[in-house]
């Protein structure tokens, strides 16, 4: 692939022509969305999709490239969100420090990344189910700590009135602006993950996933690579967490509660954990279900709360039929269609 591509091939086709037409269409559609979607769709559906997609992307990076299933990503995101509220401005004036945005945002990301790295340093010494258990334990410890600590995290209430800064005279919480803000962040995070996956660090991480013992025998420090992956994933999760607190304009322990932690795993697995686009597909499905299933359910005379049942059944169906998530289903469908075509003429073979 890109890293070691034969020299001649890239020269013949400029990069711009190597992007498939479907991506151009998707890009145009996303950019033009505010022309035809109403504020509810822009802010509530797509804004939320991009945010959850970013947080789930950080899990995809760890699990898909590093082979480490971490339940910590929502906690890191929430810590980033809390830090924006604590260091910047919020409705809880006795705690919030009121630092300017250009200090608050980088500091929040750095603090979340340091936390993620420290927990990562603990977690990488374990494998498989034990990684899941240790990150789940730390995630629930964070939830209870935030709920009981009033000095920093303001306990059960959390922080309200946490809004994005007014930059360039734009109110970034206004639906169209917020849509572009989250879209921009999602595209940057997505592109970063795709780019890094073919860099020496990303390749080495995939090598560590496939065969840690061999990587050590090639001169790589396997533990250091795994910890560095947590650092990078934490930065991505923190970006998602800051956007999430801005969208809700508040943050409370529930943001990092166990259901939210599990939801991120469900989103990544449903979408597909092998490729970076998967988490965004999973997030869109989750948000659509979450937003519209209460209406559908009450039409059938069922309680609104039953939407979790729908999500659970959907998760079960995806895990059962396609371990690679929705993305895997799509790829298999494409492969089957391809097989029915005549390899020479490209026409559909007669049945």
């Amino acid at each position, binding site marked *: 692939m890109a*890293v070691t591509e034969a020299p001649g091939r890239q020269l013949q086709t400029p990069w711009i022509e190597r992007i498939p037409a479907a991506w151009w269409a998707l890009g145009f559609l996303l950019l033009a969305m505010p022309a035809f979607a109403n504020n509810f769709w822009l802010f509530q559906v797509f804004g939320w999709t991009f945010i959850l997609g970013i947080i789930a992307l950080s899990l995809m990076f760890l699990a898909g490239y590093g082979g480490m299933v971490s339940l910590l990503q929502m906690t890191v995101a929430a810590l980033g969100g809390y830090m924006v509220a604590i260091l910047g401005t919020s409705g809880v004036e006795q705690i919030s420090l009121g630092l300017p945005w250009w200090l608050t945002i980088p500091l929040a990301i750095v603090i979340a990344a340091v936390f993620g790295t420290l927990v990562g340093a603990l977690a990488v010494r374990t494998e498989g189910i034990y990684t899941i258990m240790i990150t789940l334990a730390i995630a629930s410890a964070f939830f209870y700590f935030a709920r009981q600590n009033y000095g920093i995290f303001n306990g059960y209430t959390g922080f309200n009135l946490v809004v994005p800064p007014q930059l360039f005279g734009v109110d970034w919480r206004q639906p169209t602006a917020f849509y572009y803000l989250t879209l921009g962040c999602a595209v940057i995070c997505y592109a970063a993950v795709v*780019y890094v996956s073919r860099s020496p660090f990303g390749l*080495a991480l995939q090598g560590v996933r496939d065969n840690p013992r061999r990587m050590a025998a090639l001169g790589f420090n396997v533990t250091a690579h795994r910890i560095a992956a947590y650092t990078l994933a934490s930065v991505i999760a923190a970006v998602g967490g800051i956007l999430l607190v801005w969208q809700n304009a508040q943050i409370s322990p529930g943001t990092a509660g166990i259901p939210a932690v599990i939801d991120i795993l469900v989103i990544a697995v449903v979408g597909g954990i092998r490729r970076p686009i998967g988490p965004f597909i999973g997030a869109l499905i989750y948000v659509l279900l979450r937003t519209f299933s209460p209406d559908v359910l009450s039409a059938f005379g069922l309680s609104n709360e039953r939407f979790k049942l729908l999500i659970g059944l959907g998760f079960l169906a995806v895990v059962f039929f396609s371990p690679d998530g929705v993305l895997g289903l799509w790829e298999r469908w494409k492969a089957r269609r391809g097989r029915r075509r005549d390899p020479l003429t490209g026409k559909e073979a007669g049945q």
Partner: protein
Amino acid sequence: MSDTDLAAPADRLGSVSAGAALELRGVTKMFGALAAIADVTMTVRPGERRAVLGSNGAGKTTLFNCVTGDFLPTSGTIRLFGEDVTRFPAHERIRRGLRRTYQISLLFGGLSVADNVYLACRGVSRGRFSLLRPFRGDPLLTRAGELIEAVHLTAARDALVSELSYGQQRQLEIALALAGAPRFVLFDEPAAGLSPTERAELVSILNGLPEHIGYIIIEHDMDVALRVAESVTMMHNGRIFKEGTPEEIENDPEVQELYLGDGHG
């Protein structure tokens, strides 16, 4: 397989340090009450090519695992080019010029041949944590291409490793071990499972290595072992049983009894 293909590391290496390449003193590895290797003492000169022979369970692979640092020995010391590396993690020993291949190919099945070799080259150079993709003229890419050519895999460079034939995977194993500037290589049964033609190719690859690269090769096939080694160590039940030149070992009555006596082959 010409000499020049693999000669490049020699230029970068400068001088080979004096003294032994590998020096083991009383190395013992216990698994519970079982001594997989017991009190192994051996010295290998820089550039020396040695074969380690012995039946299954003689402790040959355990010896390799102790030298590379896959396990720490229970007692004894291991010196690599004069430096005590007994407690070093594997990657630190690799960065000092030690390399190894595995008996069962340990490759990165989800990556291409070129990516596998590129990783191996990157592992022993700086920028292991680089987040920037390599640029077109990256010397490591060139070097990876040379190594792929040296083990006759150029036609398969973009193929996924999981799609390679068994023999090709064994060749790739060797390419990974030769990345960077190797000074001493441990080959763990490189000929296992190869066809007679592939074995001949392996012998030519090993004999074509630049002279400063010493190695130890574990090999069951006497024909291969005796053609690529200048000295032989026989192991039996975790201990060193005999050392000598290939001729001495081949004609030794005790060795013949041990190796061929009890209905072997």
